[in-house]
């Protein structure tokens, strides 16, 4: 079977349990089992080639530019691990079917399990270290789901998060390490990397790469000081623990070290980092395990200890140690999985995992007793079980190892660890099964159905068989695997026998076993001492750190983003000024090429008005009406200045915009408090003032500098001047630019204007549909209302002005192409003409006489402009290409037509509609019931009788 398919099968199969659970739990479990079985068969097909020492590969270029390719390879090492993963996976699936209760969502469980399995298989089959990382992190993610499977338990959630945090962070470090490694070699393919030992170890980046990769491996394999997550991952259902912590997740780190062994091992750095860490972990785990009362916690720390053992062996860097490591990986997987399952059975059948509440189960649960005892004795390292063989090899290796010139340190500590290891193994047996039968088990214990004990029983059979005849059973496999680990070099001499003669290792084994028994006898006393010692509680510390981090982050975030706009703005201004100055000071300023004109009296007066009004706004800005007036002054001066500087178009536009905005702003002021409250301290105001002054001076200086210099290059405006009449058919260059040269900008801008009006409308709608409406209805005006709200004089005046204003609008519109004017200004003028009617006779009166709705006006405007632009397509010209010509209709004079005129009509309508819609929306805030009036003005000559009499009439 293709390696792609082996790696993909678990992922593909993961879909089924989640779906099939609706067809029953057996269907879900069978789907999971069948998937795993298929993958296993696919793997087993490759036995002949693997045993020959061939490497099976499958390659697919995924992201060649990055070097991340879906390349898989199957050699001895990968085969061994894949075998462990799939076989134990199959057993776990069987076991879990009977372990999980009816309330547990089993479909999810198998889906997560298969995802995890797929990730693990992916790791061990990867031939590309980036691909390996992909699967590596996938194991972190899927184990997160598995550990947190019982999501209603706080332990499960915390354990899951802790595992994710620790192993995930290791994975991140590993990303960096792998990138460095790939960079040294020039390829991310393992098959290439593994050929380049000399290159890698000579590189200055060897050490950082090594440390970063080891961080990944150590966190995954729960090596000191990252071991703390593993025991807390025990909150998961026992099948998960049995799977993750015997054969898979934690072995991934070991796999990686074994995988990288040919190129990374053999240096001092490797030895001291890896072997020392392994040694410490082995000892620490063994000691803690002895004092754990929770059955699974005991097994968890024993796992930590054994992982340390294997890590240490790999760290020794000798080939024979590698053999021992591989052998122990196999053995540990078998007995530890069996032990976890036993623990699960005990938990399942007695209702507790607490060693203090157990004991004496050997008669009640004889099958479980047999399985558990054999597995535990193998863990203790007793002959003739498989644990004995690899432990012997390990002890033998430690004897040959010197650590910083000390011959005794490593063997001594290893012996101590072995001693504790024997002790906790014995404790597992004696405190669960031996001793007197108790009366207070939470439930009545008995052996479980065969479905539960079958899986561990099979494993225990392996434990015994491998122990009795290892050379025949696993000898060839170990040879193949080891040769893969040591990079295809010649295998060292070793023999997988129970009896090697009277070697130091044998003496050490005897000491460890006897010492273990002795320690167990002293356990009660030892426990008192242990409990008296201060011990850091990893979970508490971890949670405290995360909590503190979260609080700190929250504080930083909330302080930084406290919602004070003025502060955000001042940071913006200060940063801009700073960078602007930096940019200026790092360049060179050219010489001034223009001579300033002498100041004349009129501009000086204007300047004084402008500056005075601006300062006035600053000073009086809390009084909203007054500041609005002053803003009006500023706008007026700007308009006048435009006019003075010979820009009549701009002046016209500016002044009409001024009028319209002032009216709209006045309308809105109606609904606001008259004064802005003080909300900043004096110090802050002075600070803000200082920064604003600097920014203002900077802007002024920039403008001054620009005005004192000519353009560095000829400007494009010369083209516009030259082509305005010839190409655009108009003599008013400003208008031709607006509707022709840069008509597309105008098209965008009228849309902006239209959108603005639409937003005002939408906001009004949403505000008026809330309880704000009642506030508005009960609103008291700031000032006493005029008794004559629609005065006769004003109504008459505006009526008279209306046709005149419309006429002016039309005039301005039509002359626009050649004289100052145009659609934009015309739109504003016509809008003002309507505005006046609103003001004079009131909103309700005006709205009743309105014949068209303003949304449509805006829409028509934009559409006409767009249609004008599209018309050019039919003449094989780009969007917005204009055309013009001359017509002569007698008796009229010859006149010009231009498509730009049509476009300008669009502009006109959009502007008109936008202004009117804004006005209309704002006016609706002021609407009150009973406002509707029949007549345009308060005192109306058309009325038959004065209003007082009318009221009397009505009342009568």
């Amino acid at each position, binding site marked *: 079977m293709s390696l792609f398919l082996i790696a993909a099968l678990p992922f593909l199969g993961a879909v089924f349990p989640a779906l099939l659970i609706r067809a029953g739990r057996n269907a879900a479990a069978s789907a999971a089992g069948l998937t795993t079985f298929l993958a296993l068969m696919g793997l087993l097909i490759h036995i002949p080639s693997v045993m020959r020492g061939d490497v099976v590969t499958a390659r697919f270029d995924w992201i060649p530019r*990055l070097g991340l390719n879906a390349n898989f390879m199957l050699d001895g090492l990968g085969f061994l691990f894949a075998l462990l993963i799939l076989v134990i996976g199959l057993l776990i699936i069987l076991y879990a079917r009977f372990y999980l209760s009816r309330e547990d969502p089993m479909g999810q469980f198998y889906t997560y399990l298969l995802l995890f399995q797929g990730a693990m298989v992916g790791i061990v089959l990867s031939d590309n270290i980036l691909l390996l990382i992909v699967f590596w992190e996938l194991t972190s993610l899927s184990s997160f789901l598995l550990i947190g499977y019982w999501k209603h338990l706080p332990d499960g*959630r915390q354990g899951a998060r802790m595992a994710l945090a620790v192993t995930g962070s290791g994975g*991140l470090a590993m990303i960096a390490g792998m990138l460095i490694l790939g960079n040294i070699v020039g390829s991310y393919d393992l098959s290439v990397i593994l050929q380049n030992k000399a290159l890698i170890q000579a590189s200055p980046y060897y050490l950082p790469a090594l440390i970063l990769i080891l961080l990944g491996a150590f966190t995954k394999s729960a090596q000191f000081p990252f071991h703390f997550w593993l025991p807390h991952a025990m909150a998961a259902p026992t099948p998960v623990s049995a799977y993750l912590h015997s054969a898979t997740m934690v072995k991934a780190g070991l796999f990686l070290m074994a995988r990288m062994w040919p190129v990374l091992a053999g240096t001092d750095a490797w030895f001291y980092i890896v072997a020392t860490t392994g040694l410490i972990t082995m000892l620490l785990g063994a000691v803690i395990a002895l004092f754990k009362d929770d059955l699974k916690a005991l097994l968890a720390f024993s796992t930590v200890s054994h992982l340390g053992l294997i890590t240490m062996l790999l760290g020794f860097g000798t080939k024979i140690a590698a053999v021992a490591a591989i052998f122990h990986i196999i053995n540990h997987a078998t007995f530890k999985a069996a032990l976890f399952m036993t623990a699960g059975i005990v938990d399942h059948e007695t209702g507790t995992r607490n060693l203090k509440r157990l004991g004496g189960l050997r008669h009640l649960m004889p099958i479980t007793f047999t399985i558990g005892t054999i597995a535990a004795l193998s863990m203790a390292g007793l002959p003739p079980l498989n644990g004995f063989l690899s432990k012997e090899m390990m002890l033998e290796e430690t004897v040959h190892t010197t650590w910083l010139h000390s011959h005794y340190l490593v063997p001594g500590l290893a012996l101590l660890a072995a001693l504790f290891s024997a002790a906790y193994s014995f404790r597992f047996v004696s405190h669960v099964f031996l001793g007197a039968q108790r009366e207070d088990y939470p439930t009545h214990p008995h052996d479980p159905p065969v479905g539960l004990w079958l899986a561990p029983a099979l494993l225990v059979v392996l434990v015994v068989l491998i122990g009795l005849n290892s050379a025949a059973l696993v000898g060839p496999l170990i040879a193949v695997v080891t040769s893969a680990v040591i990079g295809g070099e010649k295998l060292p001499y070793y023999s997988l026998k129970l009896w090697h003669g009277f070697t130091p290792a044998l003496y050490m084994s005897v000491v460890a076993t006897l010492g273990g028994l002795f320690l167990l006898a002293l356990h009660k006393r030892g426990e008192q001492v242990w409990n008296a010692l201060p011990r850091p509680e990893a979970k508490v510390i971890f949670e405290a750190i995360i909590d503190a981090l*979260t609080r700190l982050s929250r504080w930083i975030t909330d302080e930084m983003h406290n919602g004070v706009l003025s502060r955000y703005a001042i940071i913006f201004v200060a940063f801009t000024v700073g960078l602007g100055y930096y940019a200026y000071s790092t*360049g060179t300023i050219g010489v001034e090429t223009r001579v300033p004109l002498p100041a004349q009296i009129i501009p000086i007066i204007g300047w004084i008005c402008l500056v005075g009004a601006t300062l006035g706004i600053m000073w009086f800005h809390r009084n909203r009406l007054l500041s609005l007036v002053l803003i009006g002054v500023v706008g007026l001066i700007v308009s006048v200045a435009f006019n003075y500087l010979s820009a009549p178009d701009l002046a016209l536009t500016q002044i009409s915009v001024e009028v319209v905005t002032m009216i709209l702003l006045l309308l809105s002021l109606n609904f606001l408090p008259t004064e802005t409250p003080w909300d900043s301290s004096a110090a802050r105001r002075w600070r803000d003032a200082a920064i604003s002054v600097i920014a203002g001076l900077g802007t002024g200086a920039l403008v001054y500098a620009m005005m004192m210099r000519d353009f560095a*290059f000829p400007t494009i405006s010369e083209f516009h001047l030259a082509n305005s009449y010839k190409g655009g058919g108009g003599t008013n260059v400003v208008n031709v630019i607006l509707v022709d040269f840069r008509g597309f*900008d105008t098209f965008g801008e009228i849309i902006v204007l239209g959108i603005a009006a639409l937003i005002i409308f939408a906001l009004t709608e949403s505000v008026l549909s809330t309880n704000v409406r009642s506030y508005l209805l009960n609103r008291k005006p700031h000032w006493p209302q005029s008794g004559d709200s629609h005065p006769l004089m004003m109504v008459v005046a505006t009526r008279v002005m209306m046709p005149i204003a419309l006429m002016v609008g039309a005039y301005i519109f039509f002359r626009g192409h050649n004289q100052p004017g145009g659609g934009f200004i015309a739109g504003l003028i016509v809008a003002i003409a309507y505005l006046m009617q609103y003001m004079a006779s009131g909103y309700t009166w005006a709205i009743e006489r309105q014949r068209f709705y303003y949304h449509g006006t805006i829409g028509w405007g934009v559409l006409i402009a767009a249609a004008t632009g599209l018309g050019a397509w039919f003449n094989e010209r780009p969007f917005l290409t204009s055309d013009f010509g001359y017509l002569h209709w007698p008796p009229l004079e010859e006149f010009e037509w231009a498509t730009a005129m049509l476009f300008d009509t669009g502009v006109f309508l959009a502007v008109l509609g936008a202004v009117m819609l804004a006005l209309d929306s704002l006016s609706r805030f002021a609407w009150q019931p009973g406002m509707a009036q029949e007549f345009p003005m308060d005192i109306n000559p058309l009325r038959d009788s004065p209003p007082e009499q009318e009221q009397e009439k009505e009342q009568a």
Partner: protein
Amino acid sequence: MNHWIVAPIVLPAILAPFSIMVLRYHLDLQRIFSVAGVVALLGIALTITAQASGGDIQVYELGDWPAPFGIVMVLDRMSAMMVLLTALLALPIVLYAIASGWDDRGKHFHALFHFQLMGVCGAFLTGDAFNLFVFFEVLLIASYGLMTHGGGAVRLKAGVQYVAYNLLGSTLFLFALGTIYGVTGTLNMADIATRVAEIPAEDTALLRVGAVLLLLVFCIKAAVLPLHFWLPASYANAPMPVAALFAIMTKVGAYSILRMFTLAFGPDVAATEGLAGEWLQPAALVTLAVGTIGILGSKHIARMVAFCAIASMGTLLIAISQFTPDATAAALYYVFHSTLATALLFLVADLVMARRGGAIAPTPPMPQSGLVSALFFVGAIAMAGMPPLSGFIGKLLVLDASRDASDATMVWAVILISSFVTIIGLARAGTLIFWKSHDTQAVPIEMPAENEAAPEPVAPEPQPGLAFTAVFGAVAGLILLTLFAGPALEYTSQTAEQLFAPENYISAVLGGAE
């Protein structure tokens, strides 16, 4: 005459007013036309991407005025892919907005939506600096409306800040354009580029000021620290489908930086040397850090996702600020990923908020918890840059491309540590929201919502099936981006090559090419 280039602008520009005029009182018709419009936009985007992928640069002279005197639209690989991304993003979002009923909670949602698309597409396609300003205005003003869509005091307050801050940005944009015009006398981007290259060395100060102001404007849009303050509150308080659409808006800033600072003020241009890379890189690192801290420190899912958006902009700008072809290729890949991932998370946040409110704290279990939590898990994986989704590939690309940077160690450390904190933050949020709700010990029986401000209007979605379909659409986008990472990276690499050979762009625009 090939009019395809201008179609992504003209189509929404016609559709939106049509929707206001004719369909004003017919929400169902608005929906039909809106979705059809987005589908059509997608078709157009695919067409122009196909046209651009060959490597030709197409120029469209509006009004038939020759560059640099008129306005031009320019279609190259980068603008094509950005338009495509916009259309791809818009489709699930518009469907979601319809399915969740968000479009019915205020007026003119679909019109504003299409105006927004018009502004974004225009910004990607234009070859004229002032026209870029116009399209910035279009997209900004439409975004003001979309942001405050549905109203409510909190949202309006956030909206006011958003508008005010962006008005500062618009003003600065005018200053920048004025300065650049004042020196070079032109507005066409390609023309600016030729003139900047020729500017005498003793007269660079004003041009440098103009360039740096322009960069600052783009940085505001891209939410680079310390100019990001507008983002958290406005994204967190905007309607979530709108926030999802805004995922493209920050990218407009990033796009503009890439465009202007490879074309006109590129790394090899003497006059503007040292303006972009030197401070942008550290600022991007800080952006990433602050975004990440915000993810961990948020109490509300929407705010958390807003900080996710900031963090991903940080990563993106780390890549952009190196201004090398490799890093740019990585950045362009990451743009795609980051946009889709951010949008996905915002939509998931809306699913959560509609069912239980957005607080990152345990509440009683919500309906469809399993499906929503699975989607959150996918979104979180993508956002944190975990395998197997495109975020991981993007992160690897950025790391890989920055290994030759002067401060590579720093860059790597910040990226990896932020990934770590992001993982912790998202895992924390996820477990609190989805898992802890099953813990009967931890969840108060009664909702304590009596005196608190009511969460979003918790109306049951009219069409939950369609809503989920839309969200799965975003997921599908991420998966496709992962599976076809090879070809995608190939495209972005070619795009980067095109960007770093600006002479082709310039000759296409100014050489009078048809």
